[in-house]
């Protein structure tokens, strides 16, 4: 449901900076269904890639073989993101706050962390430069927090236009897709509000899974069930991927001299 909901946010023709995991699944599902002209850029430098199976890592060979071009890593960030050529960026994180700011660096104090997370990677620049950002995260009280332990990447900073006033070029998080539904920023305060619930998900459970007092949009929507053809495309994609990843690796060594 998260993958299908995320895929629906993508319009055909958009230039999309893709992260690994759910974002990659969502982008490719969109490309295989309603958005065939989505331009996918993975931070490994593969531009315009059309993978037949989903990659496990950000730089699987499948991404290179099906790419329009492969650019060196500094160019991905400088020429595409920093120059403002990316429409949509996807992010996940360990923690998010009510203004869509994200933590993927540490839990606890930076110098003495209780959990050292992988760190920034491309996230701060994606959050800063993409015209819009889509966040995909499971909603729990530990991840949807009143206060971040560390701000790795920006959402709307303190809200109320602070982000734009700081000169930050991108548009910020347009939607946060969770396992309960979709949160969107309030147009004025920019606080994330519950905008849509999945069929069967309860408002009370969504509130209980949020570490701040979650507001609900005036016109709370119900997310439509996935269309049968979209579900079929997703199942095909996942099945192809599982088969490909299960194939054993053989390396042929030259005979010893």
């Amino acid at each position, binding site marked *: 449901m998260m993958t299908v909901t995320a895929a629906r946010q993508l319009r055909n023709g958009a230039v999309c900076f893709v992260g690994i995991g759910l974002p990659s699944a969502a982008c490719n599902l969109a490309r295989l269904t309603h958005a065939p002209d989505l331009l996918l850029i993975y931070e490994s430098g593969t531009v315009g890639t059309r993978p037949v199976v989903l990659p496990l*890592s*950000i730089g699987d060979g499948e991404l290179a073989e099906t790419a329009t071009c492969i650019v060196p890593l500094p160019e991905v960030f400088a020429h595409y993101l920093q120059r403002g050529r990316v429409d949509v960026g996807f992010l996940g994180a360990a923690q998010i706050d009510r203004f869509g700011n994200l933590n993927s660096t540490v839990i606890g104090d930076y*110098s003495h962390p209780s959990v050292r997370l992988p*760190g*920034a990677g491309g996230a701060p620049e994606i959050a800063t430069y993409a015209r819009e950002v889509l966040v995909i995260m499971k909603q729990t009280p530990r991840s949807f927090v009143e206060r971040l332990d560390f701000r790795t990447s920006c959402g709307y900073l303190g809200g109320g236009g602070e982000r734009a006033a700081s000169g930050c070029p991108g548009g910020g998080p347009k939607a946060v897709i969770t396992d309960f539904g979709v949160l969107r920023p309030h147009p004025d305060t920019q606080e994330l509000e519950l905008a849509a619930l999945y069929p069967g998900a309860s408002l009370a459970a969504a509130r209980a899974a949020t570490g701040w007092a979650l507001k609900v949009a005036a016109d709370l929507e119900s997310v439509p069930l996935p269309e049968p053809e979209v579900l079929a495309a997703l199942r095909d994609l996942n099945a192809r991927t599982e088969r490909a*990843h299960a194939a*054993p*690796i*053989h390396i042929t060594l030259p005979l010893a001299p």
Partner: protein
Amino acid sequence: MELLPLTEAIAAYVKDGQTVALEGFTHLIPFAAGHEIIRQERRKLHLVRMTPDLVYDQLIGMGCAERLTFSWGGNPGVGSLHRLRDAVERGWPQPLALTEFTHAEMAVAYQAGASGLTCALMPHHATTDLEAVPGAPVKMLRCPFSGAPLTAVPALIPDVTLLHAQQVDAAGNVLFRGIVGAAKEAAMAARCVLVTVEERVARLNADLNALVLPAAVISAVSIVPGGAYPSYAQGYYPRDNGFYLAWDQIARDRKTFTAWMERHVLGVRDHATLLRTLGVAA
């Protein structure tokens, strides 16, 4: 450029206490070279790499490193690097100091090093806490022309950069095909470049704009087929995603990790033996 067996190349060029970068973004990660550094028990290294990956988990867990400069330290698509976490969170087997960039910053830091600059410049936006952590490597300044805020990123200049590539030709030129990451920048920034390759050929299969490092910028080349495994070499073998998944369990526990390293890295003579032991080569 000299053609050397990997054991001799590491012995000759990689010394205790050096700043050492093993690059390759998911693709062409020089695992065989990393393992040889572990076998030769290098210590107090300052390891540099954008995405530390499993090879740095192994170097850190085996006590080779005292500092890490990086921009994303996870097992791609899987989760944490448990040895990296253990070193940072609990100081095992020794404490690990961190210098932390974003990918974009680290890419330009290599570019600055490769260009003979002391620093690189990026637009500055006050959006991350990273610039405020103790010992943060970046500084803010103003553009002398427009007055726009800029981030200055100090140049990265490794003592040694180690890379894996597909081919070396008879003259010692080296070809990289596929995802190249910041390999070129890390090489051109370094004082010394070592490359392992899949094979030696008479003539490189290179398009006009292919990434070729000329022999003149390389100190030594070692022929190590499968040298990127469990990472991959485009056109030779794919990434062993199953191994990356399995590593999560191997590295989670200190004893399991140490036993694996003793059996598969310390306990084998070379990379070909490791590949045979793991059943990926006959």
